[in-house]
């Protein structure tokens, strides 16, 4: 059976859906005949890692991602998500329990944070102003690059002409100049600090400002979440930003819960897409991308059905796309290096997840009740996190892991029966495979026990509240959502895999090696998190190509 679409998107994750919606709406806008867009999802429902499921009667779990903040406000507005039922409830507190004394509390309100720091150290409280200023300066700089296609420094000659840019690569040159101008605005002293900041370890960075070990541990948290690095590893300071860039309706740095769990984010984007005329098919697993003489022409489903389209977009991560969906032969015909790039792509999964149904609200050591309304980071000082990382380095889960916990039901009663609560526990670090080999049920049970024990340490009496636990390792996440090695970012956010090098050198502009083949997942700039930016950017590039007639 044959049918033709303008764009076929492999994978109905939030980026795939965003890309689809942008294509459908964008095509319309460009005054062209409406683009016919098809989204193919392997599972029985769309959403990928932004998913709500009922794993225990009466409880809605946000099975993978658990907080909403990075979703770009531009996308929020363009797709008019609130009308499609997305409601984000901001929370303003982030705390770290402390069994030996008073816990640390961080508010999204600057002055309150300074006050709460004062209880621990005057020096830290004063340094916090300086620190916040520097961070927000960097964030402002990064933000501008989020929704732009990363310029390729090897293509700045405006006179080179090729298929993609019949008029030469002016865009790359302009992009670089744009970034240059932004950079110029910083002023020289800030330039030095910023460049230095890129390659620093978060430990070095925070040591410049603060002295309280537990506060430094809490502050370092966001720079190691999802990365396969410890706080002492250079290059971790940057990741700090990646979690500070959050926004909830314009409130910078704010985080929020999506009402009804993260699934409602995908649901809203999906309904926006469908409204724009996108066709979504679930239970349609793509087996292969069909490539004919260097052109991507369609996809073959597991069912054997073949669907043809003018352009193919992959929302899968780069490793899965280029090692599974695409034939090595087709790649080597273009350039044998691509296969090597794909093999060497760093996508180590480093985090697990526990979804827990609770009979009541736990009480955390050294923290007031209100702390349950936000994220609770169970950890300690740098050494605590670094030792957790050491376990992982040699192929074991952290015996005393770093935990990022949220209890969304404190602000969103729709997710659990009254009085009961759903707690999402993000576990750092958990390897995809153990040194001894693949995960066994016994190992998994032990890992679950270690996590619960760690929580019990910081929240006495916690275990008695537990009704049900859904325990996931990176291996489980890969098998359920399809993210290679369960890496939540579709590839580590290290400097060598950012901007024009994400996913691979020379392929950083959402275009794949074949004609009419594109990437729109978190494996492309600007990277992971429920952000939607990669999908939107990919769509923008594709629309350009449609307009220029690059896509036949």
């Amino acid at each position, binding site marked *: 059976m044959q049918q033709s679409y303008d764009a076929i998107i492999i994978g109905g994750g939030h980026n795939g859906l965003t890309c689809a919606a942008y294509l459908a709406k964008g095509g319309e806008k460009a005054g062209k005949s409406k683009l016919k867009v098809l989204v193919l999802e392997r599972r029985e429902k769309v959403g990928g890692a932004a998913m709500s499921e009922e794993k225990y009667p009466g409880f809605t779990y946000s099975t993978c991602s658990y907080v909403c903040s990075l979703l770009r406000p531009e996308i929020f507005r363009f797709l008019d998500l609130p009308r499609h039922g997305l409601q984000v409830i901001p929370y303003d507190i982030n705390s770290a329990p402390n069994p030996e004394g008073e816990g640390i509390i961080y508010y999204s309100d600057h002055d309150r944070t300074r006050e709460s720091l004062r209880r621990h150290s005057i020096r830290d409280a004063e340094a916090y102003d300086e620190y916040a200023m520097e961070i927000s300066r960097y964030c402002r700089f990064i933000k501008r690059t989020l929704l732009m296609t990363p310029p390729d*420094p*090897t293509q700045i000659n405006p006179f080179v002409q090729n298929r993609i840019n019949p008029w030469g690569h002016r865009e790359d040159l302009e992009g670089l100049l744009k970034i240059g101008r932004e*950079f*110029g605005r910083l*002023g*020289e*002293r800030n*330039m*030095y*600090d910023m*460049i*230095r*900041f*890129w*390659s*620093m370890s978060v430990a*070095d960075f925070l*040591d*410049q400002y603060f002295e309280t070990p537990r506060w430094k541990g809490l502050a370092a948290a966001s720079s190691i979440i999802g990365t396969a*690095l410890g706080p*002492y*590893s*250079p*290059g971790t300071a940057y990741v700090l930003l990646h979690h500070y860039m959050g926004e909830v309706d314009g409130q910078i740095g704010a985080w929020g819960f999506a009402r009804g769990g993260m699934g409602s984010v995908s649901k809203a984007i999906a309904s926006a897409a469908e409204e724009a005329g996108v066709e979504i098919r679930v239970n349609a697993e793509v087996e292969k991308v069909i490539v004919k003489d260097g052109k991507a022409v369609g996809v073959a489903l597991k069912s054997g059905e073949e669907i043809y389209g003018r352009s193919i977009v992959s929302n899968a991560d780069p490793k899965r796309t280029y090692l599974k969906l695409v034939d090595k032969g087709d790649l080597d015909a273009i350039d044998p*290096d691509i296969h090597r790039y794909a093999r*060497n792509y*760093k996508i180590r999964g480093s985090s697990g997840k526990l979804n827990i149904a609770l009979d009541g609200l736990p009480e955390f050591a050294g923290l007031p009740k209100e702390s349950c309304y936000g994220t609770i980071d169970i950890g300690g000082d740098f*050494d605590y996190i*670094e030792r957790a990382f*050491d376990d992982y*380095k*040699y192929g074991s889960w952290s015996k005393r892991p770093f935990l990022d916990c949220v209890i969304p039901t404190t602000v969103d009663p729709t997710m659990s029966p009254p009085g009961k609560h759903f707690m999402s526990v993000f576990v750092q670090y958990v390897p995809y495979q153990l040194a001894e080999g693949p995960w066994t049920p016994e190992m998994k049970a032990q890992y679950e026990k270690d996590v619960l024990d760690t929580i019990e340490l910081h929240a006495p009496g916690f275990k008695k509240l537990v009704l049900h636990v859904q325990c996931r390792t990176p291996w489980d996440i890969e098998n359920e959502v399809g993210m290679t090695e369960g890496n939540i970012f579709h590839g580590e956010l*290290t*400097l*060598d*895999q950012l901007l*024009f*090098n994400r996913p691979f*050198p*020379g392929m950083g502009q959402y275009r794949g090696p074949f004609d009419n083949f594109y990437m729109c997942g978190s494996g492309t700039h600007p990277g992971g998190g429920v952000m939607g930016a990669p999908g939107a950017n990919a769509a923008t590039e594709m629309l350009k190509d449609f307009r220029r007639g690059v896509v036949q």
Partner: protein
Amino acid sequence: MTDVVVIGAGHNGLVTATYLAKAGLKVTVLEAAPQIGGAAVTREFVPGYKTSGVAHLLHGLHPAIARDLDLARHGLDLKAQRVETRSLLPGDRSFDTSSVASVSRTDAEAYPAVMARLTRMADALAAYALHTPPRPDAMKMDWQAKLNLGKFAWGLRRLGKKDMLELTRILTMNVNDLANDYFESDAVKGLLCFEGVLGLALGPRSPSTVFNLLYRLSSLGANGQGGFLLPKGGMGSVAQALGRAAQAAGVLIRTGAAVDHILIENDVAAGAVLSTGEEIRASRVVSNADPQRTALQLIGPRNLDAMFVTRIRHLRMNGCAAKIHLALDGLPEALANARGRIVVAPRPDDIERAYDCAKYGRVSDRPALELTIPTLSDPSLAPAGKHVASIVAQYCPYKLRGTSVNDARQQIGERSLAVLEEVAPGLKQRVTAMEVLTPHDLEKQFGMTGGQWHHGEITLDQVLFLRPAGQAQEYRMPVPGVYLCGAGAHPGGNISGAPGYNAAREILKDARAQKRVVGAA
């Protein structure tokens, strides 16, 4: 009255002094130690046994500088035999660059190409070795600097699209991932990782170690000696040659003259004050000391703004390598003709675990080692028939926790010998005397803060215009008339002379500018 005072007669200090003198300035070099050379020195550590005190292999010395200063004529024999690197593995196996096949066929095929490619990239980066680093603010660069930047960019582009992008990819990576990308056998990976972490307080899995690898490779290319040399008579001979070159150029060198602080009058450098109280006045003062010593002791915080002082205080200056010298009454047959550079780092994880100890302030249980036996090529360093072994042992952290310096000294010594004994059985019995220099000892004896022999780790956050710190650009410290010419300035450590060369150029720039102003008045 002299025009310029140079504090410290390390190799960079001497290079700067010589270039300045050649340009016609009156230069005085003040050295605290009884001999010149700083860390480039040959010491007698037990009666009759001599060896290079800190650095024991010469590879970074920039050919252009050696040529300018005519070091050959001043007695430096650079044709001294090059030495190959040999990696010792357990079960008396070993391999060097020519025999990689003995550990892995596939790696043997890949090895030459990979190293050539990396060296090509390293050379492209090293184009800046003899230039003042660019400033991120293009407005602040003169045409010369802009030209250099252009040349540099063109050099990168000339690598070709593939290699340029590959360079941008690997530049910030960790050397362990790089090794996994290119090689399959632990032995080869281990050697590559060792090169990547040598001199750093980082492990193979820490990002930015690839940069350190490239930094070292650059000295094995066109911008260095093209390989490792064991200078005849130890590293001291390099210093001696530089000293003679300096004196020939008319530099006045005073040894045993410890500088207490830099004399600053109306916020401008006015000379140096010795610990004896003697004042040596000069309008320009050049410090060959490391940045922390220069800023916090010689200049003094009260003459600097607080931001800058904090920044300097937070430089990564954690020496992590100890120097061990052995007096041997003979050699075990594993080392019987080890003329070259011996590396003992069989697996990346060995190095990583060694680093894990240092991370928490402990001495490595199984240190990674670099070893040379200079007496095999230069018997004059020890009594007839006897030998000297010079060992660099990583990791022995400067920032110890719960271990006293004395314990650390003993531990690193014993543990290094234990590791060596495995790959060279019978070494222990041969040892007649042993000297161990922990980072603390290096700090005391050679005045290198933190015992960091690069005057600050070579990591991406401490190179180019970030070396030593953003507010001390182009070899000028914030106080007018005070300059930095040591390894703490761009391009950094190793016996290269490049920082000294660049500093001299900048100082002469200022001198000429001043002359112009005076002339105009």
